[in-house]
């Protein structure tokens, strides 16, 4: 009962949907408001993961735009790759990419995924995401803020 009272007192936590500034990706016309996303951590420091978690949390509520994180690359329309690709994860990332049914999108999330960030040149790093799989969308930031992640998601869902 105390939970019920809490629910009633808290009300809606989700912030109103912000105005959109960027255009849809061409793939959005095919996906029509539904994007299943498989997240791949290719060697991230987990800063981006925390931001992804809050982008799908109650405040930003990424699911309201039709995006959803899924458990299997087979269910996914898009891969969300974070971190510089480490040597150990390079083949895993390639195989995950191949497991996604076509047509597939790849989003490189965070500065590390775009150009290795602070890990550039480190001995364990194989390269940026675009060196391993073709990238359709890059999201800058270290880590990118939830509203930037939401903006990228909305460019895919078109909502």
């Amino acid at each position, binding site marked *: 009962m105390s939970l019920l009272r809490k629910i009633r007192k*808290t009300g*809606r*936590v989700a912030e109103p*949907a912000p105005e959109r500034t960027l255009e849809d990706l061409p793939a959005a016309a095919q996906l*029509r408001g539904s994007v299943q996303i498989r997240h791949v951590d290719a060697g991230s420091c987990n800063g981006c993961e925390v931001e992804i978690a809050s982008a799908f949390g*109650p405040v930003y*509520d990424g699911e309201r735009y039709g995006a959803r994180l899924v*458990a299997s690359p087979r269910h996914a329309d898009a891969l969300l790759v974070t971190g510089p690709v480490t040597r150990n994860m390079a083949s895993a990332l390639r195989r995950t990419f191949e*497991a996604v*049914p076509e047509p597939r999108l790849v989003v490189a999330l965070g500065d590390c995924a775009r150009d290795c960030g602070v890990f550039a040149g480190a001995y364990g790093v194989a390269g940026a995401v675009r060196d391993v799989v073709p990238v359709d969308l890059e999201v800058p930031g270290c880590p990118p803020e939830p509203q930037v992640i939401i903006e990228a998601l909305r460019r895919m869902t078109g909502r």
Partner: protein
Amino acid sequence: MAGVVLQVVLVGLGSPLLVGVMRQVRARLEGRAGAGIWQPWRDLRKLMRRQPITPAGTGWMFRAAPLLLPGTALVVASVVPLVTTASPLDGVADLFAVTALLTLGSVALALAGLDTGTAFGGMGASREVTVLALVEPTILLSVFALSVPAGSTNLGDIVTAAAEHPLSLISPVSLLAAVALVIVSIAETGRIPVDNPATHLELTMIHEAMTLEYAGLDLALIEWASAMRLSLLLGLLAGLFAPWGIATAGAGPLALLVAAVVIALKVTVLGGLLAASEVFMAKLRLFRIPELLAGSFLMALLAVAASYFLA
């Protein structure tokens, strides 16, 4: 005949909407805005146009399950008394046939999960069968307890008898059977506290673990079938314990329309209640699930015993 067509169309088109309503109720209670009740249909529409993948090494079982699962669900949708009790498949519309059809779908998916040869597929299949072994006898027994006063295992007859004598529903028999049937419906459809349909963690999955390898149209068929099974079990619950408004044989088109609206309302309310109660519950530990299901089986058994003593 028109009633049954209406019923199948209603289940087929309405089930994803029911899932959408349940997700929306949950989202609102969690303080989120939610994706809207049409989101499951958007997901299905998109999946239907995507490429299905047959992983290397899978056999005919993997291909057959996405057809068997919705197929059995559609047959069940045409025999269960939701809109009308007059099904042209009256001969097979008994509770044994319905339970067997539901089991056939579940077993097909469990075998398909095994067929993929992945660790999670096999694990999901093993868990599903563990749950199934306790769920199916309970469904059988609890509906059997209700069939004793009606004197028939035909679902249409049970519902007609209950609608004619509504006072017969106020008895320990229907109370025990209702509780047992609610618990097994939750288990069979993979809802909290038995399984979490929204989980991303493979280790905690039951139903989702078996579908991890499906993509595109195959996945769309399986998700559609899961939604149909959920609304069928909720519809069966509503029909057995609140059998008002269901059209009988020879009803006119207006009565059928009213019956369709009534069952849609009943199932939506039940689904909303289920979704709301899930917010207040955590998932049970896997090894506690057999205890819960054995408890529901015991209640179904008591219901059968009580129905003989009280008859």
